[in-house]
């Protein structure tokens, strides 16, 4: 039995300790906001926060995060009011939307560390893939939060 703290709630799950956090979230806990895109830390669709830092859940064995504070897209806010979520709506960022939970988690972590990120900071921190090509709007949305 493994105990996890996700979005400030404790969860007990019966899984092999090497199971990636992504599949525990999706298959065991039905938290499907976190997406699967590659499974090898290339795309960022599975980005969550581990102790406030952006991390790729597809390559994070669940045994590594038993003592950590995990936040998923479901926990970014209870009502979609997190500044990143509001900016995403205002800039109409998503197209298909599949990469966007990961994008938003990466952006939220960046803004916590650097409330006024430069373009270079954004280039360095947002390494998620968006096949629909929403990058210009992701950038604009992040800057709009920094300004407020």
């Amino acid at each position, binding site marked *: 039995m493994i105990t996890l703290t996700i979005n400030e709630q404790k969860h007990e799950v019966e899984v092999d300790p090497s199971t990636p956090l992504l599949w525990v979230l999706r298959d065991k806990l039905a938290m499907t906001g976190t*997406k*699967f*895109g*590659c*499974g*090898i830390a*290339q*795309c960022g*669709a599975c980005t969550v926060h581990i102790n406030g830092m952006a991390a790729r859940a597809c390559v994070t064995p669940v045994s590594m995060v038993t003592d950590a504070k995990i936040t998923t897209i479901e926990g970014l806010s209870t009502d979609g009011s997190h500044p990143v979520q509001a900016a995403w709506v205002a800039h*109409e960022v998503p*197209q*298909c*939307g*599949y*990469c966007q939970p990961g994008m938003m988690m990466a952006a939220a972590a960046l803004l916590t560390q650097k409330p006024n990120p430069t373009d270079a900071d*954004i*280039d*360095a921190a*947002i*390494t*998620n*893939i*968006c*096949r*629909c*090509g*929403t*990058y*210009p*709007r*992701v*950038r604009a949305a992040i800057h709009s939060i920094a300004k407020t």
Partner: protein
Amino acid sequence: MLPIEWDRGPNGHVNHADVLAFVKSGLTATDPLEGASEGDVVAAIAKGAKVIEAEYHAPFLSHAPMEPQNATARVSADLVEIWAPTQNIEATLNLAAKAAGVDIGKVKVHPVMAGGGFGRRGGQLEYVPQAVELSMRMGKPVQVIWSREEDIRHDYYRPISSAKFKAAFDAQNNPIAWDTRIAGQSIMSTVNPEALKKGTDLGFLVCFTDNPYDVPNRRVDFGMRNTHVPVGYWRSVNHSQNGYFRECFVDEMAEAAGMDPYQFRRKLLANSPKQLACMDAAAKAAGWGRSLPQGVFQGIAQVDGYGSYVASVVEASVRPDGHPKVHRVVAAIDCGHVVNPDTVKAQTEGAVAWALSAALYGEITIKNGGVEQGNYHDYPMVKMAEMPVVEVVLVPSYDFWGGVGEPGAPPVTPALLNAMYKATGRRIRNLPIVKDSQPRSAD
């Protein structure tokens, strides 16, 4: 664990060099399929004061949408239910009915949001019958999720193709003939072989059969070369390779004529007012010919398709290792009526990323009959750091309805390659750029 011994099938001996040689043999075939012809191209070329030639190539490409292919099936005695991201509900229904051996009246499809489709989830939905068969055998609902590797290795790829051009000019540098041979794999050979029984696939020659550039003697023909690799509709389809071929060669023609590439296009598009207006809008918004930071150059291209007109100006520089940095893309689009301007802009922005990923990195190669690439590390995408500033100019002429999902992509690649040529003096005629670019030792 059970040791797996793969049978690689009848094409297990085929490697990429074989595929390339086979496709390129279509460039010199003496029995090409007919495309379109005006005037007498052979006689005009024989009379030309100057003749230029060039050969271009475009690789297989995978769709690689962010959400790998998947489907969920629940088969019970009186109902087959499917949950799947699909671009084609009818095809989903038919495939599920066939797999379950029931009438379509006994099938219910629940289409769910698709994490990107780009043509991959159009008609070739083989993960749907997979889920149905598994559900039948296991007697319970089954969700099938392909790995990224399965997704990239079992795609219906953008066709591989090559183009060979010849253009002739008179003594005053006016173009008098333009001959085009396209070689490559017909999409119909995979998605609708019945249509091919008529012998050809004219859709493969788009951009040439409807070439708007006025040159008195023109011809396009087709050396069809269908490989064993399945091909399909990939966002912007045949315009993706033919737009690149044509607009790069138009730049070569402009150079041969001693003209600015924008002005040369203007001259040959005098009778194509929509293309002309759209290109003028892009050139104006970009400031064609403006003074740029040292090392940055502009390239231009225009391609109409899917009922719309798009022209792009790309501003790029080339690093010492030969790789480009794209600074800015200005795209003008005339899609007739505009319903939601923000959607048109978003689609045109996204098309820039789509085209750049392919131009810079995209290539699917074949080894032992199968696809070599498998994930985003060996089939990479443009990410934030490589994404240029994109400015979209809407120039609707409000007298037709055109598409906006596809047409933004085709002009981007040739505009970039044309800008790179100005920076390096070397034409790239083989994609992806990462493979054909060369370190700039000379400067």
